[in-house]
């Protein structure tokens, strides 16, 4: 049973998806989806335990030996990401029931859960697989399901947003498949570990260079690295609240994982950072993302959009960590990957609560919300503190390691820029505080009460986790450090 | 009558002034005496210096009444320097404006 876990973790949601269609009835389909996600979470937890013992788990699909067969290969890095994805995916399920009922309606709700499970399954597949083409396939499963999920938003613009993401996502996917194709042409294999060996043998040829460029650009699009972030704000804004939370916390994180995997495992260090000044390019883009996106976030009226831009900035931090190309930098990136998933997931859920009660997340209409929905607002603000990086929140840990890594790399001006960009976060979080607590409740405001427990609990669970991981860092930093060491193979 | 009043006030004025001056002078003489006494005491008591014997510091500190002299000189110096510096740094009270005080 335990040996089959790597397969099960993907197969459970994959089977669950059509099951949802079959049972049709809304509560049953929700139950199926919940059970599937939770089962996957348990699998991910056990896998992480195995991975932390230091062994790389290799699972051969259908008993076909790699490099011909598809191999699922799990080391600490993807075990860590698996945990994030399944964790977030299962925590928000209790939230989904009420939230989706109010935003999507009750008719054909099983479509929603089907798409959700497919999306979930796609993400897990991308993370777990050790086969480059298989990765592409799962990426497409995930992407297609995501388009559907975004289109299910209440606002009609959700359709356009989904359409736009469809176009851009497809371009990204195409680039990725072109990159993989070029690699295959040059090396004749699709297995990542095989690829990495063969690339090392072949050395830096033009084909591999081109493959590398296509892959990095394609993945950058998927992870919404500036300036390829343009699909993200609309998708996050118009998708159902719970989907915004899920995507913000997991989808871009998985894309980051893919980037890490290709940069450090498939292409070796010399090719990535010696032949190409990728560290400088990535650092530049990341810096621009941090400042430009945060500045845009300050001016947003729609809070979901504000958080979306903030996400782009936070992705900047993660990529900045990766661009240091050192063990410390990758550690910082992965720690922030985890912490940001908690913080942003929690904040989007809190906004979902507000959406559920007030029906809007426009900051102009939320004056005095802190008095009307104290628990929700407190969660939102605490999450905001995490984004700023106030000590004793998870955000502080991320920034701490990021600044440390910058100093270690000798790029100490970056340390100051990181702190400076946090000030921008102070501004947009301050806007929240001001609207929520400083402004009086308008006279004609409709009476709203605190969000129901099923919505509040997951929100506070994630926010609480973001505080908890701000104090207890053994899981995050410990695992991230080991994973970074594994990824860099003793380098840096 | 008018004249009389004027005269009395003049006298009181003179008195207070005299009184003030008198007090001030008494004060001055007392201090002067005290300073002299301490100076003289210096001659009678053995003074242990903190500086290493023979060093420049010991020579400066060593002679009788060194501290009196330093006190006198430095305070005169202080008054003169402050007069000069005041010319540079003094500004009208409303320099920073009425509000921004």
């Amino acid at each position, binding site marked *: 049973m335990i040996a089959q876990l790597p397969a099960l973790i993907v197969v459970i949601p994959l089977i669950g998806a059509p099951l949802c269609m079959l049972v049709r009835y809304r509560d049953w389909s929700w139950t199926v989806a919940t059970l599937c996600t939770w089962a996957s979470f348990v699998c991910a937890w056990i896998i992480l335990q195995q991975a932390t013992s230091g062994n790389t788990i290799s699972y051969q699909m259908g008993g076909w030996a790699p490099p011909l067969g598809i191999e699922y290969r799990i080391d600490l890095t993807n075990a860590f990401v698996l945990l994030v994805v399944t964790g977030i995916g299962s925590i928000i399920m209790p939230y989904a029931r009420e939230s989706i009922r109010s935003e999507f309606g009750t008719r054909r709700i099983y479509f929603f859960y089907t798409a959700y499970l497919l999306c979930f399954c796609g993400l897990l597949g991308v993370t777990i697989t050790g086969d480059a083409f298989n990765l592409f396939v799962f990426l497409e499963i995930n992407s297609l399901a995501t388009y559907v999920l975004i289109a299910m938003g209440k606002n009609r613009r959700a359709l356009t947003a989904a359409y736009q993401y469809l176009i851009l996502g497809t*371009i990204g996917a195409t680039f990725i498949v072109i990159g993989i194709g070029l690699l295959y042409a040059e090396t004749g294999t699709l297995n990542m570990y095989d690829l990495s060996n063969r690339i090392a043998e072949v050395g830096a040829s033009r084909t591999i260079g081109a493959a590398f460029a296509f892959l990095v650009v394609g993945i950058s699009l998927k992870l919404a690295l500036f300036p390829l972030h343009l699909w993200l704000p609309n998708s996050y804004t118009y998708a159902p609240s719970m989907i915004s939370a899920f995507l913000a916390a997991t989808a871009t994180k998985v894309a980051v994982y893919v980037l890490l995997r290709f940069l450090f495992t498939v292409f070796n260090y010399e090719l990535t950072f010696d032949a190409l000044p990728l560290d400088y390019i990535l650092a530049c883009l990341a810096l621009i993302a941090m400042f430009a996106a945060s500045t845009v976030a300050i001016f947003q009226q729609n809070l979901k959009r504000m958080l979306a831009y903030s996400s782009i900035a936070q992705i900047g931090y993660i990529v900045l960590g990766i661009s240091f190309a050192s063990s410390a930098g990758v550690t910082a990136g992965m720690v922030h990957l985890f912490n940001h998933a908690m913080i942003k997931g929690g904040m989007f859920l809190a906004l979902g609560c507000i959406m559920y009660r007030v029906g809007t997340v426009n900051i102009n209409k939320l004056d005095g919300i802190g008095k009307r929905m104290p628990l929700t607002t407190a969660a939102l603000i605490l999450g905001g503190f995490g984004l700023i990086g106030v000590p004793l929140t998870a955000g502080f840990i991320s920034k701490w390691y990021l600044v440390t890594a910058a100093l270690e790399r000798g790029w100490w001006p970056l340390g100051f820029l990181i702190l400076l960009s946090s000030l921008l976060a102070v501004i947009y979080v301050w806007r929240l505080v001001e609207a929520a607590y400083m402004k009086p409740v308008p006279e004609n405001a409709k009476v709203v009460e605190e969000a129901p427990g099923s919505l509040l609990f997951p929100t506070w669970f994630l926010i609480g986790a973001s505080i908890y991981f701000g104090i207890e860092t053994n899981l995050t930093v410990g695992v991230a450090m080991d994973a970074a060491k594994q990824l860099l193979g003793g380098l840096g | 009558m008018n004249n009389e009043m004027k005269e009395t006030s003049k006298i009181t004025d003179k008195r207070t002034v005299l009184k003030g001056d008198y007090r*001030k002078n008494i004060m001055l003489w007392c201090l002067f005496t005290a300073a002299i006494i301490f100076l003289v005491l210096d001659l009678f008591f053995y003074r242990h210096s903190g500086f290493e014997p023979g060093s420049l510091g010991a020579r400066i500190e060593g002679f009788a009444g060194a501290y009196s002299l330093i006190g006198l000189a430095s*305070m005169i110096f202080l008054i003169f320097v402050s007069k000069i510096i005041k010319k540079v740094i003094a500004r009208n009270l409303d320099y920073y404006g009425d509000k921004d005080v």
Partner: protein
Amino acid sequence: MYSLTSIPPGLFIILGALLIPIFSGRTRNVFMLVLPTIGLAGLLQFDVGIYWETKIFNQNLTPVRIDDLSLVFGYIFHLAAIISVIYAFHIRDTIQQVASLVYSGSAIGAVFAGDLITLFVYWEITAISSVFLIWANRTERSYRSGMRYLVVQVASGVLLLSGSVIYITETGSINFDKMSLVGFGPIFIFVAFGIKAAFPLVNGWLHDAYPNATATGTVFLSAFTTKLAIYALARGFPNADILIWIGCIMATITVIYALLENDLRRVMTYSLNTQLGLMVIAVGIGSNLALNGAVAHAFTGIVYKSLLFMVLGAVLVQTGTTKANELGGLRNSMPWTAAFAVIGAASISAFPFFIGFPSKSLILSATAYEGYWVVWGILLFASAGVFFNTGIRIPYLVFFGKQTDKKIVEAPANMLVAMGITSIICLLIGIYPKILFDLLPFNIAYEPYTMSHIITQLQLLSAAALVYVYANNKDLLSNNKIALLLDVDWFFRRGFPFIINYVFKFYWKIHQGLLSNLKINLSKIIGTVFKHHGPEGVLARTWPTGSTVLWVAILLALYVIVYFV
């Protein structure tokens, strides 16, 4: 008494202070008095050592480190808190009450912080809580002044944090111990300490903000922030030569300023700064005797400074001013306060048998032992100058000089009690300095009351007094034109705004010059930022499939070109 040692010193007072709003009226005041008293009792229970060591963020935090150096400061801070609370017993202002105790507690916590991160946290709490004591005046003036104060204090905290981060990454050690002044990390930390210790050029906040705090607030303020910085310097940078010269400059310049100033509370801040200079010199000399001197002087400084600030506070409360030209002859209406003022003045001037004498002797001797004769001369100049400015001038101008006609009565009882206790301490330690010397971090036999110390000090003081009386008789000291003195705060109030204004105007001219031909609306220029970043801005545009594709192409080309070139 197990329970007293179950909360870190300092934190106990901070947490307790948060409970203040629960109580009201007299109960609240009693509670506020009990807090630091129990804190002190608790501190007496602690043994030397390290407590509550915890691992957080993979670093070993040492929230409480009790050793000889920190203990002295711990005791005196508690004492200062108790006295200041008595002095502020009549205040009915929740914000001020909470802020004052949080401030005291955080200063105590900072002294016992064993690592840089804990130190930073407390450091910032002192900054943030103390500003409320300035704002509590609730005037435009105090608000602005407090704002400037806050900016400088927070800047000090930020420097401390950045310095610490660099230091920790470079050395791997988070502990707050002696550092050598090499590299960015220690230098940043040094500057952070220097700001709070009111080094020259960064001392504007002291003279700007303290005189603008409330009468009771200044008493709290004078005790903690700067002495905390002295502690930090003594802990982190003893024996740093540069400190000696910084201290000399501090001590001399501020003496001159003090003489020229008319507002007596500001005179006090200048003389406070002079005293800090003496301590900084002692820390810079760094021998065991000198460090003892610095610590002892910080201790005695807190006592007599508090006393004098309390006296001036009482005068402020009773008469509504501390301007020298508006005061005089209060000895008849405020006899007790006058007596305390004389004791305070004698202490700050280091008259024998008053508290200032033993500590100043320590520093003087330490300087002489190390052979710094120039520094020794400056010390004498500064001592005489402080006597001149504060020792004679303040009591003379307020209580003796010309009589004022105002109907003025003695200060409230609680203020008198606080001043009385402090005066007793002044005399007690002045007469039995052994009480203080036993607390000092280094065990050194030192006898302040030798005939030679007493005579030389009296020589110095009598000569200075002679000059004062003579100059006063000849009217050389009269402030015939009461003026505002420029200080470093000018940069905040005039300099930076001026530069920004100038740069902006310059930029504006260029901008207009360039654009006037194009006849572009001014509003458009202002909206540039909004244009790019606003909701409909270029960077926030929402339906950009085409542009993304363009970017994809550009990036791809970039990678390929970079790779193949």
